[in-house]
């Protein structure tokens, strides 16, 4: 452990990696705070820029964007009640009320502090939990890996929200897209329709940029401009009493966030909602919730950061991403020629531990940046979307072109941009599609190997206790929520009709941003 940490620090503390870590968290904050630009979009657009960097440096920067965006998303939630990130939706409830009461400074300060504490706690847990899990997974053969991948797809589908059949449909569509081109192990070109460009398959980066960046822009144009910026605030003062009141919520939020974040697919949005809900139950100041309770900001903000880090446990140890952004990051691994999965801990210790230690450095940078500078970042909100989205389009297309210096990439981005827009309008979940696309080649390899082991039969899946256990868990996840929902409805028949207006507004945002 100590050796690994030393290795990590010596990797992360090179001037180059420190610089890119800083660039990552800075860009992440800005990307997180722009409504209409989420961390998934940000990472997707910026992958092409990192192609010339060392893989470890590139991943340090991309991961910095991811957790930096968790800080940035808060600023918009508090100041204009428009979450920049889906995980900050619930912060609008009390954060915006605090801002209206003239306590924007306290709200932003406590969320920066809470996020930092949560990040450090969850990082320690991540470093402690991921290696043994990877060790365990190393003993897995193709049969167990196949079961794990099925589990991963099921989990992402069941947590993506919306209907189960739509999620499964998109996961299958992702797998289908991944089969285009010549597969490893076979010599046949599939679904290329005579195009040379398609022989090597549909490239991952172009699909991501199309779905998340261009699709989002098209969606925003149709949705119309958001509410104007109303709040101004003076300084980042926070009283000792407020700090004291927030300690419990921060710790509880970190715990809830980590536990939920560790489940592949659950992600930080769910964690922040859950932390808010629980805090509202246990808080002695229940009545203040929704009217500007600092606990209602501290808990979800800690939870979403803890979950963002915890997401890396399954991503790194099993090769199954925790959410949309980690799915894109996992794709980035493959772009740099690294095969995601438990073997990384053995073959790439420098990369893994350098990356993990960089989280620590990045979060320190974010705390320093966010405590005094949040008002400065808030000025970015004055950029009109009318200028912003053409720039996003330009960046998307140039980035796609630069991956393979080919106009075909640009056309692909446009096609998948339209696909992404349609998916958003029709409420089709994106995360399952992305995971299907990333896992496709690995999934096919595991399928081939499993069928070879079973001489053409997949019954071997049911002969290994580990794979049976994993598959049973997958079935439980698919059926469980349905049963639970039925139970909940029976318990309180008026339940779903009871809607408090704030929650309804927040949900509308959540719904809108869920696809990111």
């Amino acid at each position, binding site marked *: 452990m100590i050796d690994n940490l030393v290795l990590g620090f010596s990797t992360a503390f090179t001037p180059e990696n420190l610089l890119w870590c800083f660039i990552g968290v800075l860009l992440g904050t800005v990307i997180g705070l722009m409504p209409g630009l989420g961390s998934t979009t940000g990472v997707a657009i910026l992958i092409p820029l990192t192609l010339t960097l060392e893989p470890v440096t590139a991943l340090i920067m991309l991961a910095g964007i991811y957790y930096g965006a968790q800080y940035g998303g808060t600023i918009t939630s508090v100041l204009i009640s428009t979450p920049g990130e889906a995980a900050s939706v619930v912060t609008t409830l009390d954060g915006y009320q605090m801002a209206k009461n003239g306590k924007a400074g306290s709200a932003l300060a406590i969320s920066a502090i809470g996020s930092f504490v949560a990040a450090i706690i969850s990082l320690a847990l991540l470093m402690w939990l991921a290696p043994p899990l990877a060790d365990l997974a190393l003993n897995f053969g193709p049969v167990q890996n196949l079961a794990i991948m099925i589990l991963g797809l099921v989990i992402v589908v069941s947590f993506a929200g919306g209907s189960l059949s739509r999620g499964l*449909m998109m996961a299958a569509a992702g797998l289908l897209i991944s089969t285009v081109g010549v*597969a490893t192990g*076979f010599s046949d070109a599939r679904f290329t329709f005579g195009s040379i460009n398609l022989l090597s398959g549909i490239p991952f980066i172009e699909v991501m940029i199309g779905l998340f960046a261009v699709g989002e822009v098209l969606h925003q144009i149709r949705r119309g401009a958001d509410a104007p910026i109303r709040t101004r605030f003076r300084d980042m003062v926070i009283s000792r009493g407020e700090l004291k009141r927030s300690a419990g919520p921060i710790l509880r939020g970190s715990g809830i966030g980590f536990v939920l974040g560790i489940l592949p697919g659950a992600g930080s949005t769910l964690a922040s909602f859950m932390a808010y809900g629980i805090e509202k139950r246990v808080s002695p100041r229940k009545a203040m919730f929704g009217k500007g309770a600092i606990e209602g900001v501290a808990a979800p903000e800690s939870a979403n950061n803890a979950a963002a880090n915890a997401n890396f446990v399954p991503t790194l140890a099993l090769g199954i991403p925790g959410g949309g952004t980690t799915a894109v990051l996992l794709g980035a691994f493959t772009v740099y020629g690294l095969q995601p999965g438990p073997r990384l801990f053995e073959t790439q210790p420098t990369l893994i531990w350098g990356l993990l230690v960089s989280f620590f450095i990045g979060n320190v940078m974010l705390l320093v940046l966010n405590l005094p500078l949040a008002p400065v970042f808030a000025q970015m909100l004055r950029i009109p979307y*009318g200028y912003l989205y053409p720039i996003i389009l*330009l960046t998307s297309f140039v980035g796609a072109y630069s991956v393979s210096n080919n106009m075909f990439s640009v056309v692909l981005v446009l096609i998948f941009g339209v696909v992404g827009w349609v998916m958003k309008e029709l409420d089709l979940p994106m995360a399952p599609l992305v995971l299907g696309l990333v896992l*496709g080649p690995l999934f096919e390899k595991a399928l081939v190997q499993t069928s070879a082991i079973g001489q053409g039969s997949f019954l071997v899946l049911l002969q290994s206790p580990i794979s049976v256990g994993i598959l049973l868990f997958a079935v439980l996840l698919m059926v469980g929520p349905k049963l639970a929902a039925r139970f909940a409805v029976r318990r309180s028949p008026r339940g779903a009709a*009871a809607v408090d*207006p704030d929650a309804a507004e927040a949900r509308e945002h959540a719904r809108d941003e869920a696809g990111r």
Partner: protein
Amino acid sequence: MTAAQRGGIAASAVLAAVGVAALLGGLGYGVTVEGGEIGPGFLPAMAGGLVAVFAVLDLVGRLRRRSDRPTQAELILDTASRPEDGVVLGDPLDPGAPSTSTQSIHSPLLADDDADGVDILGRTQRQRNRMLAVVLGLVVATLVMVQVVGFLLAFVLLLFVVAVFVERRRVLPSALVALAAGAVTYAVFVALLSVPLPQGLLGLI
């Protein structure tokens, strides 16, 4: 039936057709090889079949106008906010049906179509739909223009045209933003990363 519902039905139908086509294509590539092990057509056929099955299920669901299940997060927020809320607002449309209330809240498209939602810049939904079509058309035109004036110039032009004619921004600031974005792109991609952006027939930049 609203545009959103028609769109959803059309999308499911298209996906079902794609799934069936992929299934047939996969069968053509060979699902198994000799010895009974799976061949190059197995995953395409399986994925295509699954897409088709779930698309048909979705299609049936949409035709029966079943509303969405609330997401996990919504369920939690609901349970969290319920007990201590003094006021319980029923669904104005149908107080007896719990499942429809969520739909009326979070289907932005339906809401937009019904209430002629005007955004803060005073643009109606119809105008924004037209903007979307115009922007898409402009992007396609830009990709064609790349062959003539080159990548960078075509996109700087796109920025300017979108800002001035679609977003009704003032001419001078728009020109400055477009030029600045072009300069930054040139600096990062051409000068720094030496990406050979297409120069088009003119071959200027």
